[in-house]
């Protein structure tokens, strides 16, 4: 079929191919490979997203099973189903699994599955990154659960409070399994954040401008930004605690100037936004399902977007409401109390918009809608107890009792699991091409709904009476044994319901009756696809002119299935998508995506070995693994946008678009912006840790160390600025066509950066000494190390780009990589200036 691609540079999608042949070509280009190898190398978003969802559901079952043991233990006072040690382990693993291995990943799975289909594109902009994220999530989960095999299961609670989890009170490897395993799995969260931000900003269908974006996409966009700012504090906290455990640093140890509350601040700085990171995509699901079943567009679209954005911000001001009882001054508590209540405003706006939509429409009660009603009832109750807990005096009464357990399960199960099941049933026909059984799914709903409320409603009372949480038994004198027995029995009803739902969903793929297309008569773009959806999604990229394209213009279904529209022909046998303007959604660029590849799996495996080496203290193995890891990532980058990529392609007769290496809004550029937000948030958390320790330490700088500006330090500062100059001049020289000069400027930046480290690090060693002496030394060395790591990455990037320039992959026209490199350098220099000022100037004024 060599006639399919007559000209590699400027293909002409004319009429020389018939429709069936074009479809066959699309099928072939977008298909995963055959057999097991094909599964291991797959990168397509439909495949990866379904894996996220299935893996998430498996972890739901595992986490749920642990909770059944917990409930059995609590069903009557003085039982010994689990001894106290096992109980702590199961509580820890239950919470950890549900938060990190179920709720977040499954919502990512939904987002990754739906976003390209709703936005009218063929795939996410970085398919290899999605696949890499899934492997990290899977390996991270396995890593965490392998602690059962090695007999050192984490038992410090899913919140891992220090000092309980430091090496004195948690000897052994349990806490290490938690810290490393969870951080490994979180790679999936941050990669998905970058992926989804870029997808939503630049790959929407032509015409889908910001006012026409589905509310689910708005919700995911806000969530992705929240992940970018919210996960880094936890990642940093995990790193600090692991460094303390492995190398005896002193961040959280009072005797050496540390502070255990630093952990709580960092943890809840993540932990509270986390609740909304889970809830907002679920709210997006609700905003998608409610209009469909009300059979009218949503009421107050602008208000719902407002609510999503406002929630995204306000939820970062609530973290201390998890710490009302730790002894923080009252005024500070009052700030957080007020912010905790204020977040009810945007949540309320959304709830009223949904109710108004149902009120104004003609609601149609099918199974997804049933779950939405379950969501309304449950989530509103959870929200109300949330406002109660935002009152400091009430919180002091209910703190660490089962009232809080009841509240958080109402919010999480009500706010996330009910919408998730609603979404599961809603989009099942799209994924399977078949309809779920109405009767079985209704039974599943009632089992879950009744089981849930009977299990958790009594906990409000047991909590108010004084039954403590996190403890494996309670006194008979409390008189709550019958309520607990009821909770346990109902908990099993809930479990049966969930298993029934999952069996129902699994059976649907094999036995469900063949559904008609668009069975719910929905208006969003994903329902224009054939059911089940093909791997390439749309045969022609749709053009959109309404929020509900399928209601507005039913002809769009037909148009997307013909092959004479945008990208109807698989140009040069590669995977292409269209990039559009961030606000206007006008076509701007053609983006070439990766085919199936082993790189994501190998990269994740290398990291698994590296972390395995770390946890077994075989540090030589970890260091050795850095080489293949860097090699794999360089290979990964080397295979993007080479000189063989055309400069522009014809995406439809008469419409030629530049390819991404030339485009201003290139996905790679926005990936850099997203990554720098994550890195910047990580850095800001570290700076917060520095100031927090300073504020709470009796002596600072502690341990007899003084680190102030001196001659070598000033020289280091000069070298850093010189590196910045080199990085700044490089793309200027490149754009002027002086490729040699560009390479020389890169080399200059590299040498200056290395000089900076060579001057700074020995001077710090002289002044501060070993990081183990005092929390001051620990945080100074961590800051310096953090900056050194970024300089190392910048050096690698500069070397890589210089090599690419040398080989002709990057030049005056194809300058994207040079732009990205300079962007990263700019960040590293700015961060270096802050680190420098913090280390060398701040001690003078402290």
């Amino acid at each position, binding site marked *: 079929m060599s006639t399919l691609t007559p000209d590699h540079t400027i293909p002409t999608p004319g009429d020389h191919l018939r429709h069936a042949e074009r479809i066959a070509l699309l099928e072939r280009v977008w298909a995963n490979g055959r057999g097991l190898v094909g599964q291991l190398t797959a990168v397509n978003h439909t495949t990866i997203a379904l894996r996220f969802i299935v893996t998430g559901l498996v972890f739901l079952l595992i986490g749920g099973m642990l909770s059944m043991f917990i409930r059995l233990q609590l069903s009557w006072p003085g039982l010994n189903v689990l001894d106290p040690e096992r109980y702590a382990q199961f509580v820890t693993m239950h919470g950890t699994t549900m938060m990190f291995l179920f709720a977040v990943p499954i919502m990512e799975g939904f987002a990754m599955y739906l976003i390209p289909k709703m936005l009218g594109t063929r795939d996410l902009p970085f398919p290899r990154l999605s696949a890499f994220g899934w492997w990290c999530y899977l390996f991270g989960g396995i890593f965490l659960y392998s602690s059962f095999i090695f007999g050192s299961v984490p038992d410090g609670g899913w919140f891992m409070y220090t000092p309980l989890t430091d090496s004195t009170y948690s000897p052994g490897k349990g806490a290490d399994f938690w810290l490393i395993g969870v951080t490994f799995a979180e790679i999936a969260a941050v990669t998905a954040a970058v992926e989804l931000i870029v997808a939503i900003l630049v790959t929407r269908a032509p*015409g889908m*401008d*910001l*006012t026409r974006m589905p509310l689910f996409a708005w919700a995911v966009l806000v969530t992705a930004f929240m992940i970018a700012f919210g996960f880094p504090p936890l990642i940093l906290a995990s790193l600090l605690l692991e460094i303390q455990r492995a190398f005896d640093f002193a961040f959280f140890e009072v005797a050496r100037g540390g502070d255990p509350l630093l952990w709580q601040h960092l943890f809840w700085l993540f932990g509270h936004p986390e609740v909304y990171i889970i809830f907002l995509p679920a709210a997006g699901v609700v905003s998608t399902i409610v209009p469909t079943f009300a059979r009218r567009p949503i009421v107050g679209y*602008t*208000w719902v*977007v*407002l609510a999503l*954005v*406002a929630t995204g*911000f*306000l939820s*970062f*001001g609530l973290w201390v409401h998890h710490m009302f009882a730790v002894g923080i*001054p*009252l*005024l*500070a508590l*009052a*700030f957080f*109390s*007020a*912010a905790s*209540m*204020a977040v009810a*405003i*945007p949540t309320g706006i959304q709830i009223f918009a949904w109710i108004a939509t149902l009120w104004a429409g003609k609601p149609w009660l099918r199974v997804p809608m049933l779950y939405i009603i379950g969501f309304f009832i449950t989530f509103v109750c959870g929200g109300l107890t949330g406002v109660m807990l935002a009152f400091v005096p009430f919180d002091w009464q209910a703190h660490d009792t089962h009232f809080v357990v009841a509240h958080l399960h109402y919010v999480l199960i009500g706010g996330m699991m009910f919408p998730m099941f609603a979404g599961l049933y809603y989009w099942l026909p799209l994924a399977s091409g078949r309809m779920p059984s109405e009767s079985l799914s209704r039974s599943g709903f009632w089992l879950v709904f009744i089981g849930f409320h009977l299990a958790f409603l009594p906990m409000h009372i047991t909590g108010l009476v004084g039954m403590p949480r996190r403890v494996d038994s309670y006194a008979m004198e409390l008189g709550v044994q019958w309520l607990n027995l009821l909770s346990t029995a109902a908990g099993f009803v809930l479990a049966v319901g969930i298993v029934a739902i999952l069996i129902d969903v699994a059976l649907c793929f094999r036995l469900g009756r063949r559904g008609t297309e668009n069975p719910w008569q929905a208006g969003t773009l994903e329902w224009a696809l054939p059911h089940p959806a093909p791997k390439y999604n749309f045969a022609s990229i749709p053009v959109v*002119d309404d929020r509900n394209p399928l209601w507005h213009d039913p002809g769009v279904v037909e148009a997307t299935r013909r092959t004479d529209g945008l990208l109807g022909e698989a140009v040069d046998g590669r995977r292409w998508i269209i990039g559009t303007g*961030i*606000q*206007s959604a006008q076509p701007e660029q053609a983006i070439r995506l990766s085919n199936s590849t082993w790189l994501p799996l190998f990269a994740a495996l290398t990291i698994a070995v590296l972390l395995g080496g770390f946890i077994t203290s075989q540090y030589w193995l970890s260091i050795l693994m850095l080489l293949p890891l860097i090699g794999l990532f360089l290979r990964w980058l080397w295979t993007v946008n080479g000189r063989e990529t055309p400069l522009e392609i014809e995406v439809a007769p008469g419409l030629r678009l530049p390819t991404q290496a030339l485009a201003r809004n290139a996905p790679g550029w926005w990936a850099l912006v997203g990554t720098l937000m994550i890195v910047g948030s990580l850095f800001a958390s570290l700076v917060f840790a520095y*100031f927090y320790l300073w*504020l*709470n330490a009796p002596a600072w700088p502690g341990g007899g160390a003084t680190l102030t500006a001196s001659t070598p330090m000033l020289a280091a500062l000069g070298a850093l600025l010189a590196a910045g100059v080199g990085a700044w001049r490089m793309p200027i020289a490149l754009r002027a066509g002086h490729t040699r000069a560009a390479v020389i400027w890169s080399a200059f930046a590299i040498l200056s950066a290395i000089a900076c480290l060579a001057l700074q690090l020995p001077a710090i060693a002289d002044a501060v000494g070993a990081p183990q002496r005092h929390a001051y030394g620990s945080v100074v060395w961590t800051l310096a190390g953090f900056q050194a790591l970024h300089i190392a990455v910048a050096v690698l990037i500069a070397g890589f780009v210089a090599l690419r320039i040398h080989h002709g992959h990057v030049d005056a026209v194809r300058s994207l990589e040079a732009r990205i490199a300079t962007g990263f350098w700019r960040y590293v220099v700015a961060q270096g200036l802050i680190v420098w000022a913090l280390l060398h100037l701040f001690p003078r004024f402290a």
Partner: protein
Amino acid sequence: MSAMLPIGLTRMSMPLVVWALHFVVVYSLQGLACARALWRAPVAGLETMTWVLWALTLLALGVIALFGASALRAWRIARAQTDGRTETSRLRFLTALSALVALIAAIGVAFTALPVALLPTCA
């Protein structure tokens, strides 16, 4: 065509950024006041810190009001246009959204700062 008023996603979220900055600064200063006795001397019957926190709150509200007013102005211009173009409807949406975001941010700042009126800096 209103010369494409400079309202985008970044500009839209600026009032909430001001809310976040206000929150961080107020919380940090309060911490410094308690841990390091910063600005605890009484001025006109109240601690200096209380006055500082009030001043910062007013400053934040003022900045938010500026963003809100400019968004409102842009929204009025966009609303007055009836050319039916996609850009106009997009502008109308973004300006309305920006004005509402400013409103929510103002409520957020005022609500968060309310305790300053009720409590001493360190209780």
